[in-house]
């Protein structure tokens, strides 16, 4: 079965469906509903035998490259640290098909936002390359 990473982003991606404030500015009950929904998604995927793992990343980003012989590594926080793409984390799932991965991503995107309505957040769906040779 193919594996997929369903990525959430802090920044970047297509034009948002609608603008929304950061979660720290939502009503407490909306924050609870949102977090409860994501917990439920994790449990659901686990129950269905599709969950491989969930990881969250901190927003602090450091780009690093080799500095050359006898030189320290070169680091920067990015070309456009305020606007560039920034992955927030995501789910690794092991599913029957690409269609199922899209279905799961759309379900995650229906997570409740401020006011309780769906957030319509863009989810980045990426297939993980298999380590074993394919049978076809």
């Amino acid at each position, binding site marked *: 079965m193919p594996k997929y990473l369903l990525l959430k982003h802090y920044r970047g991606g297509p034009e948002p469906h609608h603008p929304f404030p950061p*979660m720290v500015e939502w009503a407490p009950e909306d924050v609870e509903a949102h977090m409860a929904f994501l917990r439920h998604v994790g449990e659901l995927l686990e129950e269905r035998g599709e969950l491989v793992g969930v990881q969250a990343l901190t927003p602090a980003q450091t780009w690093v490259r080799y500095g050359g012989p006898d030189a320290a590594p070169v680091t920067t926080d990015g070309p456009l640290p305020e606007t560039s793409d920034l992955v927030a984390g995501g789910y690794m799932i092991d599913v029957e098909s690409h269609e199922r991965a899209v279905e799961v991503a759309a379900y995650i995107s229906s997570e409740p936002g401020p006011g309780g309505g769906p957030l319509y957040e863009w989810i980045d769906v990426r297939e993980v390359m298999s380590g074993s040779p394919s049978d076809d």
Partner: protein
Amino acid sequence: MSALDESARRLDEGALRALVPRVLAGLVRRGEDFDAAEDALQEALLEALRAWPEHPPRDGQAWLATVATRRLVDARRSEVARHRREEQTYAEPRPAATEAGDDTLFLLFCCCHPALAPASQVALTLRAVGGLTTREIADAFYVPEATMAQRISRAKRALQGRRLDQPGDLAVVLRVLYLAYTAGHAGRMDLAGEAIRLARQLTLATEEPEAGGLLALMLLNHARLPARLDREGRIVTLDRQDRGLWDRRETAEGVRVLQSALAMQSEERRPGRYQVEAAIAALHDDAASAEETDWPQILAWYDDLVALTDDPVRQDPAAVLGRAVAVGHVLGAAAGLRETDRLRDPIGERHRWHAVRGHLHELGGDLPAAATAYAEAARRATNVAERDHLVRQAARARAAERSRTAATYR
């Protein structure tokens, strides 16, 4: 679940694991190489898990020592064959004449050797002294089993050729056990319980009051564990915890251990940091409600804690930060916030600094500032449960401010 895990469950695993330090220490004292002896004992343990449910040995320790020795001889024979050297034979082990406590201490010094990185010290201690399997340790730290196996064998290789017969640094041992304890709150394996077990063994092996201080600190914190998360896994702060869920038996033991450690101290010999931190934890555990917390006493202990280092702001910012909270509760939020200002340079980029400022702003009734500080803390958090908690705190402070403003203008 493998058949091995099943049989392990039917055995008294605790009793089996308690034999590990005795057997291993016996082998190493006899002159066996630490690395080889530890590998041989792991194999003997796996064999015990297979064989003991059917054929329980009369003397488990002797059984393990014999099987481990046989493995060592086998390993050496193949080594010898490879090098075309002459075959040697080795005597069966004699029962160790030393006390169990000595063995534990001796092995802790081996595993907490200063040549090893802290992560390796913890892993090696859990395996060689705690008797956990590589798989269990890997699970506790959320790394693949192969990675943990590599970490452990690298650590053992680093010990090769070093003299292991000298007393090590007890302070390092204490730090390693405390690291294992704190890691135990996050993982799947109950490392906290394991660290408490090892600390208890350590107190039997040494007169050092700080060993008692560490055990007391672990017990007094561990007692609150059942109340620390709610059923959805959300963090519950100390002031909101259901104190009826605290483990009073653990609290009582912690207080007893702390008292006997403190009794060994004098004017010339002041209590060390684990005893002081345990005293602070004991005062929290002792309060029937958050309102009844004896903050002036807690502040007095924090004064002792920061006095342990010459430059606490640089050397022990966590202690200064904890003291700032106590200052806030005793002298007012503004005084507490002034204390945190001194820490802006060393730890102003850490989430805990912002979280404490959020708490102090809230204590002083400045809800907008509290919300901003909590949001800053959430942005810097490196743990999902803490991040979620801080997001909630920020949202809650903002909502409370909104309803207060609405009430004013109604």
